[in-house]
């Protein structure tokens, strides 16, 4: 009996010491909390932003994307392009090393680019970023010679996500199934430990050829829900959080040792209200159902609805004020590409009513809802959104009220995301949808969805078709002069804005927070906010 008690006592004592001890670190370890997790560490197969965050820290690419939207050369010390713009020669820096000590040369880069080019299953890296690759070769002078199928203006944004992999580690593996948990890279951080869906531990690469990190370790810890994140930073279990529910912003701001940063996301997304305006004659042959309400093909109707939308109210209620009113699909986070000279349609319900009256949409049967000019159908629109969104239901309630004030009624319905895709495009089996896009640093990707050729492929959700726009799109694809290209892109935005193709309610801001009593030096003065970006993580140091 006594023996048992003794064992118990010892066990308890050990447990207590284990609980109170733990992690008192000499090394400077930064703990970052996020509510997601990399889906895979294989850069070719990865889709989620969290994976890309890790890749940014562990790998290098030809260029770096800065927080202000500009690009700087990274692995290459110089880049030269032929006169016709199709042959790029990158001189790679000498003396570069992989985390395992092997030298990093042009060989590796060429091998990586060929890998991405030749693997059609890589969703982004093959599908989008290597589209224009023709051949990739090396020279004896540690140069990479990249030949394109045509001259493009945005080579930087095409290369920035093509993370360079070590040929010697990847040569023998199955490029699709390789989980890459060892992650031999060349970047400022090395992979130390990875437990999927729990955490990623990175240790500093003090021999990094650019600025090596001042801290010793960075740990990204996964939390299943955002509330846990907020609790974690409040109680000091993490030093920085990359996201939070907007509702927590105020209470975190009030905390003594916590500072909040709000700004455009590094990889901005766009929330959009989509109008099905596909022309029945233009209905895609394969899979097109085209059941949209005819009224939405009339610009007047869309214009009236735009005037009846109080975007600031939406921002207030849904984002708690943390966002900017939207214009077009190009978010303000894309910096210079964003056409800020455009004036939005002001919130004016009276004006909206006037527009509809003038256009002949009156309430023919006295039920409070306007009808088509010929009286055959009321302006009753189906409103769908993906069922996993918590903000869309709120938005639909507010829109129902706002548009109800101009005699439009809605049939709201949450739909399973896969079912929604099936409804959307190229089926065009809906009236109005609330959805959103992710974006690329280069505007070309988003601009594509407005083109005519995107209609049958399923990339166009609106069915919008404007030959003038198509022409400009083709132009900007090959315009090598930056200023000229920018003009074209701005012109394109003006066109689609005038045509009220979408209503963009807002651009969601990134809300992040860090503890002021742990680490200092976080980069917070840029237009874009991304504390987990490599720019911050290499310069922060422990608070003395």
């Amino acid at each position, binding site marked *: 009996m006594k023996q048992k008690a003794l064992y118990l006592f010892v066990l308890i004592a050990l447990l207590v010491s284990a609980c109170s001890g733990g992690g008192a670190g000499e090394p400077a370890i930064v703990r970052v909390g996020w509510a997601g997790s990399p889906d895979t560490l294989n850069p070719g197969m990865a889709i989620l932003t969290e994976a890309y965050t890790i890749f940014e820290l562990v790998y290098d690419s030809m260029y770096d994307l800065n927080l202000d939207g500009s690009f700087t050369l990274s692995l290459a010390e110089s880049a030269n392009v032929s006169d016709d713009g199709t042959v790029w020669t990158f001189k790679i820096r000498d003396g570069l090393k992989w985390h395992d000590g092997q030298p990093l040369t042009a060989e590796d880069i060429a091998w990586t680019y060929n890998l991405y080019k030749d693997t059609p299953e890589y969703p982004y890296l093959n599908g989008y970023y290597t589209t224009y690759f023709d051949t990739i070769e090396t020279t004896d002078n540690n140069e990479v010679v990249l030949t394109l199928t045509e001259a493009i203006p945005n080579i930087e944004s095409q290369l920035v996500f093509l993370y360079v992999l070590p040929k010697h580690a990847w040569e023998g593996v199955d490029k699709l199934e390789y989980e890459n948990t060892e992650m031999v890279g060349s970047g400022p951080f090395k992979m130390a430990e990875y437990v999927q869906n729990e955490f990623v531990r990175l240790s500093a690469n003090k021999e990094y050829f650019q600025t090596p990190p001042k801290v010793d370790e960075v740990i990204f810890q996964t939390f299943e829900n955002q509330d846990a994140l907020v609790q974690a930073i409040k109680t000091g279990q993490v030093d920085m959080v990359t996201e939070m529910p907007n509702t927590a912003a105020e209470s*975190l701001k009030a905390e003594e040792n916590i500072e909040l940063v709000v700004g455009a996301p590094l990889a901005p997304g766009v929330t959009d209200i989509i109008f099905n305006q596909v022309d029945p004659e233009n209905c895609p042959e394969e899979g097109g159902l085209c059941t949209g309400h005819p009224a939405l093909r009339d610009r007047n109707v869309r214009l009236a609805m735009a005037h009846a939308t109080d975007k600031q109210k939406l921002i207030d209620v849904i984002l708690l004020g943390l966002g900017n009113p939207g214009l077009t699909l190009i978010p303000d986070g894309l910096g210079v590409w964003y056409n800020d000279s455009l004036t939005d349609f002001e919130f004016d319900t009276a004006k909206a009513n006037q527009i509809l009256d003038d256009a002949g949409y009156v309430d023919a049967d006295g039920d409070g809802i306007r009808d088509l000019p010929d009286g055959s159908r009321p302006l009753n629109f189906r409103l769908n959104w993906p069922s996993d969104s918590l903000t869309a239901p709120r938005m639909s309630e507010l829109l129902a*009220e706002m548009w109800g004030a101009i005699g439009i009624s809605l049939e709201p319905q949450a739909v399973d995301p896969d*079912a929604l895709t099936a409804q959307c495009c190229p089926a065009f089996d809906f009236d109005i949808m609330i959805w959103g896009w992710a974006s690329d640093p280069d505007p070309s990707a988003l601009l594509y969805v407005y083109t005519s050729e995107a209609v049958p492929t399923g990339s166009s959700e609106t069915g919008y078709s404007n030959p003038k726009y198509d022409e400009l799109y083709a132009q900007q694809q090959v315009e090598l002069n930056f200023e000229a290209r920018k003009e074209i892109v701005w012109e394109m935005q003006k066109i689609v804005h005038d045509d009220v193709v979408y209503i963009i309610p807002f651009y969601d801001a990134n809300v992040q927070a860090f503890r002021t009593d742990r680490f200092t030096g976080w980069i917070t003065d840029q237009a874009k906010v991304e504390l987990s970006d490599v720019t911050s993580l290499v310069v922060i140091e422990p608070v003395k």
Partner: protein
Amino acid sequence: MQITTSPTPAVPSRPASGLLSFWRSFSRSRTGLIGFWMLVIAIFVAVFAPLLAPYERGASTSVQIDDIYQPPSSAHWFGTDDAGQDVLTNFIYGARVSLTVGFFAAFISIVIGGVFGLVAGFFGGRWENFLMRFTDIMLVIPDLPLTVVIVALTKPSLWNIIFVIGILGWTTTARVVRSQTLAVKSRKFVLRARAIGASKFHILVQHILPLVLPILVVQAVLAISLAILNESTLSFIGLGDPSAPSWGQMLNFAFGRGAMSVGAWWALVVPGFGIVWVVLSLTLLGQGLEQVLNPRLDTHHLMAGRPVVQKEAGAKPIQSDVLLEVQNLSIHYVGEGKAPARAVENISFTLREGELIGLVGESGCGKTTLMLALLKLLPSAGQIANGKVFYNGNDLTVMDEEEINKIRWSNISIVFQGAMNALNPVRTVGEQIGEAILKHEPSFPKDKLNARVSELLELVGIASDHREHFPHQYSGGMRQRAMIAMALACNPKVIIADEPTTALDVMIQAQILELLDTLRKKLGLAVIFVTHDLGVVAELCDKVLVMYGGVTAEYAEVDVIYNEPKHPYTQELLKAFPDLTKPKKKLSSIPGYPPRLDNLPAGCRFAPRCPAAFERCHTDEPALHAPQKDHIVGCHLAEASK
């Protein structure tokens, strides 16, 4: 998704006879009442939502940023939620959605489960096989992934959710209904109906359904609570209908839109409280309903007993050569809100070594109560209201459990009436006998134990290899004999035998009686033999105590009882007993019924049936008179004949 805890209930003895009597028995269950009124409140809130809600439902453009997640205030009693809406309003309307889902989904489950159960139970054969196998399979398939599939296939709308919950919730109901149908099917009135040639459908609807309905009602109540819990879980996982603000949906929004980080506890606590309220009310209601259908005795054998009362101060002197002396023992049964039932009144008798006393009387005259009281084995409602029980000079009535445990079995053992369940079914008979021995003789050598047990079994005519068998492997008569063997295990001085040979055939009975007789002669074993077989009494007993309605009718030596019975009841008893040796005589019986112990007539308890009753018998209780030495008679007539 959580499981129902309702056990398989027994068949009610007769169908519910009217709403009023149902309500009366239901309202005796406190839990049921609480649950009922809680549910009524919830339904009231749901029905009158538009009148009760302070605001209109639905997000409004009149909301400002500051209105979001506001703590409770005079304007918003329960604060606001993530869209600035009034939580109280949403809570009230949420009751509608949650209750609607609950009722409709449960309805679907009950209909499916009920039909399956009825068909399986009634038609049996291949139908039953198929349906029950199907039910088993459905039980093991995890609900949630199945729900995801179905919801993903269809729109996430409220009616789809109701449908999904409904078609996944019938399995327990099917099982329960099937058991019930099986039980009812074999009842006599159903067999009769079939014999008459009634159609299957008619039998199902007219005879079986009414008896299955109560079970279904209980199941329905539980199904509603489960449906409400399931819907809230689905909403939490994001599979709910966002345009139908159930309480679960409110929690989904609150949790997903950062209520906790803001400290907006009201957005989390209030909807959850609603769910708990309704589910709890239904659970309590279900428990209450079950009490009505399957009234469980809420007493058991290990409950604390009632204190012993001894009204008469001072003990009567006890006789020294007497083993067991009972003085003026009175036993009452105490019930809530009623006058106590005077089950046994003023009984006295003595027992010497080797004596055999026969205790005779009709069923319900208090014999068993008296026997239990001797060893303080009365149920918790029983109370020794007066009197003493002396064993070897010690008063058993004032002993505590620890002291009397020493006396029990080793000195006085008891053989219960009807040994059907008197032995523990999951332990071998040998073990149980051995347990008695070891309890009172802890130092009994283990290796000799089995031999001793076998010896005891053979004493009562059971082959010793049955020692390792379980009670269900014994026949009824064997079980009775095993009980006797067990009673003898510790060589007691007194055995109380409550109708020990009633279930046995005459040959075995003779064996047992001979055994008792031998033991009496050899070891001085004293026996209290409770019986209504006067033949056995005549053969074996030294003394006889005749009881009627809980009191002494007559107490004397056996010869006196048979040859000079003074109490009219005794005389009638003797007349009623057939005598094989005498010429054929018409069987006589005593007309009337024994008295109800909670509704005793004034005066003599036998008076209503007594052929010799006169006026005084109906007003005064007779005292115990002794017309001669050692002859007690509880009758007014005996007084006169002194």
